[in-house]
């Protein structure tokens, strides 16, 4: 758990970068720090592992004030990933990834097992990549190694500063998926900086929206999108915020909420799987892909048909908090 308690940061020259931040990152959750460029995301992140000093207030790591901990020891227990991957060009992939275990004095066999395990986790062949140097890898592969390096000594806490920010959209989306998969397995406590609201909605258990070093809203993605607290949040998440929030729900959420109409007779029928996101479902309706979309669960059972009307009712219920 990471707790920020009335944290302030003033840089030299009276630049107030962080202003009275109170925040808790619960164990095993991924909290996304988001906001416009220069709002203090990186600063807040770097105060946790003391790469930046804390001007006032305190940051507690599992209940302990970080400033009372030994810096070097503490950093080895916190995974740190940066946008530019920060891989050392003079070291092989294996050496890069095993830096922290090596600093901690792990023996050879343990390091080798860990390397193989992590390479499997990020989907790269350990023997193929072990002896290669970072410049011999693609951007996506380098960033995977950067993430795996942060996980190397199995730290309970991870700090990630726009880890996928430098990648092209397709690779970025893939790495996001992969990392979510990894997180489901490893359940780290993660503070993750992003400037992309779609990434935040997709990845975050919760989202912190910052402006000029102040927390504007700290909520679940659905709450931020459906109930922005103020005009700034509203503007930041975009006028298509409700459409975005639809990616947080699946067809299953919808048919669980309502009793659906039986199908009517029609030739032009398409089925839609219950795990499909509502955002995709809406697109299918708007695209006029078929006269009728029939909801099917993973066992192949039919749950009636999906209509715009039904989606509207669902939105009404989720956003206004009442039955339509």
């Amino acid at each position, binding site marked *: 758990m990471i707790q920020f308690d009335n944290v302030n940061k003033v840089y030299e020259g009276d630049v107030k970068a962080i202003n009275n931040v109170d925040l808790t990152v619960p164990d095993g959750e991924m909290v996304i720090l988001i906001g416009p460029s220069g709002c203090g995301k990186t600063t807040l992140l770097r105060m946790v592992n003391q790469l930046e000093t804390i001007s006032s207030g305190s940051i507690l790591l599992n209940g302990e004030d970080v400033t009372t901990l030994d810096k070097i020891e503490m950093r080895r227990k916190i995974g740190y990933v*940066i946008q530019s991957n920060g891989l050392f060009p003079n*070291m092989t992939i294996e050496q890069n990834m095993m*830096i922290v275990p090596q600093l901690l004095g792990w023996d050879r066999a343990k390091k080798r097992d860990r390397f193989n395990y992590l390479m499997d986790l990020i989907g790269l062949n350990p023997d193929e990549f072990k002896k290669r140097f970072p410049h011999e890898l693609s951007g996506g592969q380098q960033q995977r190694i950067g993430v795996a390096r942060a996980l190397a000594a199995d730290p309970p806490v991870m700090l990630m500063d726009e880890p996928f920010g430098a990648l092209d959209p397709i690779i970025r989306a893939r790495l996001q998926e992969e990392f979510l998969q990894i997180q489901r397995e490893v359940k780290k406590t993660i503070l993750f900086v992003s400037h992309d609201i779609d990434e935040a909605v997709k990845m975050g258990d919760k989202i912190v929206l910052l402006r000029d070093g102040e927390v504007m809203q700290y909520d679940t993605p659905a709450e931020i999108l459906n109930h922005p607290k103020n005009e700034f949040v509203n503007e930041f998440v975009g006028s298509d915020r409700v459409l975005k929030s639809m990616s947080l729900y699946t067809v299953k959420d919808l048919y669980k909420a309502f009793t659906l109409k039986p199908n009517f007779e029609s030739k032009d029928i398409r089925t839609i799987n219950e795990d499909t996101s509502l955002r995709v479902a809406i697109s299918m309706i708007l695209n006029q892909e078929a006269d009728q979309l029939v909801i099917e669960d993973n066992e192949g059972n039919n749950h009636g048909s999906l209509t715009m009307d039904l989606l509207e009712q669902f939105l009404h219920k989720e956003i206004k908090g009442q039955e339509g």
Partner: protein
Amino acid sequence: MNELIEYFVKNYPFLWGYMLDHLEIVGLATITAILIGVPIGIYLTTNKYLAGTILQLASVFMTIPSIALFGVMIPVLSVINQGVGFLPAFLALVLYSQLPIIRNTYTGIQNVDPQLRDAANGLGMTTLQRLWKVEIPNAMPLIMAGVRTATVLNIGIGAIAAFIGAGGLGVVIYQGIVRANTTMVLAGAISVAVVAILADFILKLIQKKLTPKGAN
């Protein structure tokens, strides 16, 4: 031309002896200069104010004509009865090598991507670990370039050290001048040039060996 070849063939053991002397003094001076200059260069990266001053001071040394520096050293070192010979030449060469070595070490470490330094800190390296594992290896091409410059420079300046009795290939040139023997002067000069080229080549190989595969 024929005369020159004849001279080399005839005086080969004589030249060889002077060349070994030459290499000895230049080698010792350069190694000493590395042992002093590299740590200074590294230290300066942590102290920007001092860095400016020291680099300037080292540049000033470079502009002093070597013959004048030798001249200044004679009275100073005469106090300990070492006014001429090995010691003043050695000291002068060490001083001359400082600029390329300090400057290149300083620039090399300074030029290491700040993101790498940040990553090293974030992963929990101590300052010394960061230096050994990240900064020096990645600065190695530049540090070695400084060492090469210093070595070649010293081989040339070392020839002038003969004037204060330090021996080496300069003696051949010096005696050639005194005897008005052009062939001898040329033979000495060519030997110095060949030694410089060979030394640079060997150091290039060492540089390749010392530079980690991924760093450059």
